[in-house]
């Protein structure tokens, strides 16, 4: 069965980059959020298993979403995909519960490998 997936990024192109990297059979059950606030609403009302999350977004950013997930005590595997590749940022998101950090533009093989490593594929 395909997991419920949410992709959160303010860029349409970046969202498509993630989407086309996913296994074909997953694609029907993917939801989209264009910013952090939208993501938190979807996360609250649906049981999302996997979240692909951008960091630098206007309004509630990726860090805000990670904090929200902790506050709501949600059981969701978060993979951060960001252009902000500073080592300090990578450790920060992991400390906030993200499974992995991937740099933009995301490569399909890197994304799939990460899913495999966490037993999600």
């Amino acid at each position, binding site marked *: 069965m395909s997991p419920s997936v949410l992709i959160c990024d303010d860029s349409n192109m970046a969202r498509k980059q993630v989407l086309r990297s996913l296994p074909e059979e997953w694609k029907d059950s993917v939801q989209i959020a264009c910013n952090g606030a939208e993501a938190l609403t979807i996360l609250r009302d649906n049981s999302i298993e996997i979240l692909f999350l951008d960091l*630098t977004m206007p309004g509630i950013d990726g860090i805000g979403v990670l904090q929200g997930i902790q506050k709501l005590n949600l059981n969701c595997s978060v993979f951060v995909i960001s252009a902000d590749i500073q080592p300090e940022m990578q450790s920060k998101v992991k400390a906030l519960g993200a499974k992995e950090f991937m740099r933009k533009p995301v490569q399909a093989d890197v994304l799939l490998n990460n899913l495999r490593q966490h037993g999600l594929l």
Partner: protein
Amino acid sequence: MNEFHLTEDQQDCLQELINIAMGQASDQLARYLDTFVYLKVPSIESVAAKDLMKTLSQQKNTMAVVSQGFFGYEGIRGEALLVYQEEGSARIADLLGYEPDELSQDEQLIDISSILTTTFLNVFAQQINNQLSYNAPKLLPNIQEILSEHLQQMPFTWDLALKVNINYQVTDYSFNCNMILLIPETAITNIKHVLDRILEEF
């Protein structure tokens, strides 16, 4: 961005290429300053050639402009201007622990500008399958006539400038600078083709 006549998809694609380039430029800056750089989404807008001097002179307390030329294949070329506000550059000097004597501050500005400009443009060029070479960066004092003269002496005719507003917050400090890319029409047309090529992949 109207003057570039970009479609919504092209604009989104360009913004994402710029975000990625800016992310890596910030990472280099953070390594250089040995600190963490807080990054915001850079806003981009276009400025017509005739309005650039007006735009620059409207900015209060502009203290320095660092200018660096670049050129690649297929008519991609231009000039990158990093525009600093007075307050910003004093803070950079503070951050680096430099005495605010003029020489070292100038050198710091040139170094930082070159890191930002070349990293940004290298990553941007990579993404559009190009490769760039650079001229030496030049610090221009903010005297309107010198700036205006410098802009008129470009080795190419540029029609539009792409202005990327960058805001960096470095631990307790924050500084704003604008990166302004002066690009000739041929380069703009070329970039649009590349954007379309990238978009076709989806």
